[in-house]
Structures are given as structure tokens and as C-alpha cells.
């Protein structure tokens, strides 16, 4: 196995003038601004956990885990051609509920965020905890939107086939 590169070698490789100039030219050619990352700032959830940054830091893991869980739930519901539309709207509703959670949801979020054992891996594996939270976070109107999105996708498919 090749020996790992040293820090000094990395700095020389990445910050020597020739290499850096080429990268800056590539940056110019991209002709776009440079940014990365999502943010929770400016949302109610930030205010709720502002005094406890470690909990807020776990929000990303929790959100990714919830996204995966709801995808798996919908996949098991045999939605056919409506599945992707249902997942898209489910993720969008979930994000908005996480950004502006009800006071009830904030309480449950705090409990789940404090359970250290859930955050040992990249994503949370406790499906029951995630599903309990989904039931509180998503409102009846959200599920109705998810169903409507799936229904529209089925309708579009039928109309497209008929007119083909």
C-alpha cells in the first residue's frame, strides 16, 4: 500500500504557484460563485436549540435519517408511478416542518436529539423512533399533499398514454 502523503507534501502540492494558478483559472472558467452547504440558520429550530449547539449539530443526521425513513415507508406502500412524486413532496414537507416545528414537535425532537446512542453512526438506525417522530412532525394536511402528488403522477401517466 502506498505510504500516506505528509502534510508538508500536501501543502507543497496544493499551494505551489503553478498548481494554484491552474486551479484559479479553473475557478474563473466556472464563472460562478463558490459556496457549499445547507443551513438551519434563520429558522425557528435554531432559536429553539441555540443554547445547546451539540443538539443542533445532530439535526442534520436526524433530518437525513428521517428522509431515508420516509422514503422506505413510501416504497413499501406500492405507489407505483406516483412514488417519486410522493417522496419529493414528503421531503419538502418534512424540511418545512423541521424548520418550523410545533411546540409539541420541539419537545419530541429534543428527546430524540439527546439520545446519544442514536448518533453513533452516520444515520440513525432506530426505525421506531424515526416513525414516532414522523407521526408528530407531519400533519394530516402533509399526508394529504403526499397522496395528491402521487395521484397527480398516476393521472399524468394515464393521460400521456391515452394521448400517445
Amino acid at each position, binding site marked *: 500500500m502506498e505510504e*500516506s*502523503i505528509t502534510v508538508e507534501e*500536501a501543502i507543497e502540492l496544493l499551494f505551489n504557484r503553478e498548481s*494554484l494558478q491552474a486551479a484559479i483559472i479553473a475557478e474563473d472558467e466556472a464563472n460562478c460563485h*463558490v*459556496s*457549499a*452547504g445547507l443551513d438551519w440558520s434563520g429558522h425557528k429550530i435554531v432559536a429553539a436549540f441555540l443554547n445547546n449547539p*451539540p443538539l443542533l449539530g445532530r439535526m442534520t443526521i436526524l433530518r437525513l435519517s428521517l428522509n431515508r425513513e420516509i422514503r422506505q415507508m413510501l416504497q413499501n406502500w406500492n405507489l407505483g408511478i406516483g412514488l417519486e412524486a410522493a417522496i419529493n413532496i414528503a421531503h419538502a414537507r418534512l424540511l418545512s416542518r423541521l424548520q418550523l416545528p410545533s411546540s409539541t414537535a420541539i419537545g419530541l425532537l429534543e428527546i430524540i436529539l439527546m439520545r446519544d446512542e442514536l448518533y453513533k453512526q*452516520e444515520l440513525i438506525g432506530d426505525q421506531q423512533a424515526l416513525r414516532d417522530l414522523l407521526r408528530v412532525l407531519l400533519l394530516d394536511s402533509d399526508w394529504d399533499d403526499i397522496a395528491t402528488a402521487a395521484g397527480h403522477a398516476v393521472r399524468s401517466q394515464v393521460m400521456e398514454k391515452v394521448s400517445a
Partner: protein
Amino acid sequence: MRLKVELINGVDHQPIEGFIVKLAQNHVDDFVNIWLNELRTTEADDKFWDWLFKLEMINKNEEYEGYALEAEGGTQGFMKIETQRHGSHEVYGQKLVYVEYLASAPWNRKEIHLIPRYRGVGTNLLRYARVRSVELGYRGRVGLHSLPGSVKFYENQLMENFGPDEGNDDLIYFEYRPLQRL
């Protein structure tokens, strides 16, 4: 920590000296007092990024690190990285440095200023993330989710494009493989 780097003056194309340093209160002050007005005016994606909050998080959590690029007496860019929790999308189980936030000052952005003041801010910060990855034993692996307007930049920096990440608002996930000797 203070790493000397080189930027390019956008007007006369001459190199100028800059420094990557640990994120501190004076950088946050620059963001609040100087950057924000321009970001609000242009409705840039990152106008609500709260660097004061990020600084607090960084100070309270070892896994987070924040860096600023200083040049000509001002803050030219910010970066926040996470160093413990994220894994490679290429090789399961390999840790990497994850770039949570990266932003250059509004006057260095082409979509805001036809002639940016300094070029190379994002490039330098991204390269520093690779140096930290080497320092941490991750061999230069770096991952990030790109905002929609920045995809071309990461492609041009030869990061591998793993496509939209459905669990992360469909932002495009990019990753640098281990750094190799020439």
C-alpha cells in the same frame, strides 16, 4: 495556525498575499458589518448564514473547525468543516473532512461584481480542507454538498460528482479522492 496563500487581484491580475487563519470574532464582525449589506441587496443564497452562531458551535464542539481567508486587511472568505462524523461516498467506512459551509466575500463573486476584487478565495479554502484531511489521517478526502450555483466550480476543481443527494434537498454531492504524490 496561519498559512500563507496567494490570491489574484481581479483588476491588474497581480498576485497578492493572503492568509488562512482560524475563524475568530473579527471575521464574524466583518461578515455582520460589511458582507451582510451587500448580500441582502443581491439576495444571494447565503444571506442568512449566521457566522456568529457558527463560531459559537465551533468553539463548543471539537469536531467543527472554522477558517477565514484574510487579505488586504479584510475577510475574503469563510469555511466551516466537520471532521469526525462524515464518511466517504466512494469507500464505505473511510472518514473524510466534510465542508459544511464555504463562502467568498460578495465583492469577490462574479455574479455580483463583473470584475471580482480577488480571485482564488474558494480555491484556497477548499485546498486547505484537503490539507486538514491529510493532517487528520484521511489522506486528503474531502466531501461537500454544492449549492446550485456552484456546481461548475467543483467540477472544474476535479472533485468527483456523485449526483443529487435525495436526502439532502437534492444538492449535488462532491468528493475529493485521496491526494496522490505526483
